[in-house]
């Protein structure tokens, strides 16, 4: 995992409500043999005129098809973004598209956790802050060490869990941290085996 770096760009607006992980990565592309990288199929039902990345032409209205947003590392997302299935391919393709930070008013719970495992930062902001960000036309910046989002004429700080922050900044995932707890795990299992023996001998 790459350590999280400060970001600055014109953010991609992905502001539909309740964007589900089936839209982000359609199941057909997860199991089939694809002609192109998975990220090319991200949002294909909305992104191409035929709803199919292989046969269709990019729709000029869809933000990911627009030049201004090329290479953007920040996206502004609608309510409950990433709801639905647990597939990690959803944050993975966003990562492949270059996104490192998603800013929205709420996220699907499983999706939210998955982002951190890939070194991505999901930020929850209030509806007011969201309204100001979507009204911006220029670039915005995200700085994790100071927990700040800033734009042309303003800035706000955001909350981030301290453990998640440290892992992102150091480029650590959970496995690396938990392996250090092996003695705790052993102690837990030993005590628990006596209390709930049936758990351990199915």
């Amino acid at each position, binding site marked *: 995992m790459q350590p999280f770096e400060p970001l600055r760009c014109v953010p991609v607006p992905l502001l539909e409500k309740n964007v*589900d992980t089936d*839209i982000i990565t*359609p199941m057909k592309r997860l199991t089939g043999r694809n002609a192109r990288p998975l990220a090319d199929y991200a949002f294909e039902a*909305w992104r191409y005129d035929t709803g199919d990345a292989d046969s269709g032409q990019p729709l000029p209205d869809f933000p990911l098809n627009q030049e201004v947003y090329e290479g953007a590392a920040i996206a502004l997302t609608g309510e409950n973004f990433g709801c639905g299935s647990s597939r990690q391919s959803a944050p993975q393709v966003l990562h492949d598209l270059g996104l490192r930070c998603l800013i929205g008013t709420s996220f699907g719970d499983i999706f939210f956790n998955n982002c951190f495992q890939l070194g991505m930062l999901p930020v929850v902001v209030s509806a007011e802050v969201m309204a100001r960000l979507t009204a911006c036309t220029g670039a915005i910046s995200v700085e994790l060490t100071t927990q700040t989002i800033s734009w042309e004429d303003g800035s706000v700080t955001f909350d981030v*869990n301290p453990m998640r922050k440290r892992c992102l900044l150091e480029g650590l995932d959970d496995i690396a941290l938990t392996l250090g*707890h092996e003695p705790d795990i052993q102690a837990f*299992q030993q005590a628990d085996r006596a209390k709930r023996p049936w758990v351990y001998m199915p």
Partner: protein
Amino acid sequence: MVPMGRTLLDKVWDAHVVAELDGGYQLLHVDRHLLHDLGGAPALRALGQRGLRVRNPELCFATPDHCVATSPGRGEGSAAAGSRLIPALRSACVEAGIRLFDLGSRDQGIVHVIGPELGLTLPGLSLVCGDSHTCTHGALGALAWGIGTSEVVHVLATQTIVERKPARLQVEFSGRLPVRVHAKDLILHLIASEGVELGVGHAVEYAGDTVRGMSIEERMTLCNLSIELGAKIGMVAPDDVTFEYLSGRRYAPSGREWDAALDQWRSLPGDDDAVFDRTVHIRADGVAPQVTWGTSPMHGGPVDRPVPDPAASADPAGTRAALDYMGLAPGAPLLGLPVDCVFIGSCTNSRLSDLQAAADLVRGHKVADGVEAWVVPGSEAVKRAAEALGLHRAFQAAGFEWREPGCSRCVASNGEYVPPGKRCLSTSNRNFVGRQGPRSRTHLASPVTAAASAIAGAIVDVRHWP
């Protein structure tokens, strides 16, 4: 200060804390880890690439379900994705020493159907799986939720998971469900009335006399759609119905261990003075059969109510987009809407009682011309039990296809798509854009609504079905 009463969630959660981490995170022990064909082999491969081994293979169980073909008398290679992923799962499980309920065995099935069926899911256990409908297992009083691929690798390596305790949401259902109105209708009604964000950041506990009166299979249907409410976790406090369901199941404790387990399980329900962060009350007695009209489980309502008019809705653009995708005019009735496909199956509604209820309605009738109607049992055990009761003959005589167990058209990861533009009445749990295949149109409903509509060739109000 007087300590506050604890909820079911508190009790089960607290019993699994291995270590306190920063920022309110905790390291929790995982008692059962279920794997399936879509994610199993890739996760085991990723583990190997990090130079790690499965820490407790005896607590992991695997089955192929997502990518298996469900055509009658299926062969291995009949689903393209399965022909790669299933052999990979098989060899990875052998290498890691993980028990696999393979194709053709009496135990294979949708992972959320077989867990409870085999007694792998027990009250008070923590259970995870790389699939969002893992919340289903909460019906037995287990703490169960879906995780992503990195987390699957984490659990394989450490038998633990990093989590933060969610807030507590109680949904209290009271009253009796009307005739031919099922648990599926009740949970769709909750989602339609409260929205798909109600549960975000929460674990739901379903309570109230309606739930107490439900079988375990009905409780599983309720818990299954918790994720559609935004909640990773849904639970029901274990009671005598739970214990009776589990007694004698293959992987459930027996003899003296059963007695000891039972003692502990009886103390799991929340204390009388337990406090929830939020409580929602819902009356069950007025609920009508539900059918969704749009592309979110929240886009639903009583089958006899017309679809909304975007201009009059709270979210005009979203409503219009959903209706366009579904090929429906604003304000059009759902009743009488012709359907092309009917799918009775998925981890929501593919258990024996679901199939029995559906079979009862189709006896003596024929599926309408031009409708492709499938019944896909949730597991080999369900299939065999249904066949012992002759349900397969009732379905086949009516013109339904009786298929092999698996996820099938719920997500079509085995290539069993609903064709583009076709309308499918489905007992599954998601009606997202493209969920059952590119440009497929999904209406969610209960097994009885699906069965009766297959016969009628159009959406019907099952309360008035002959």
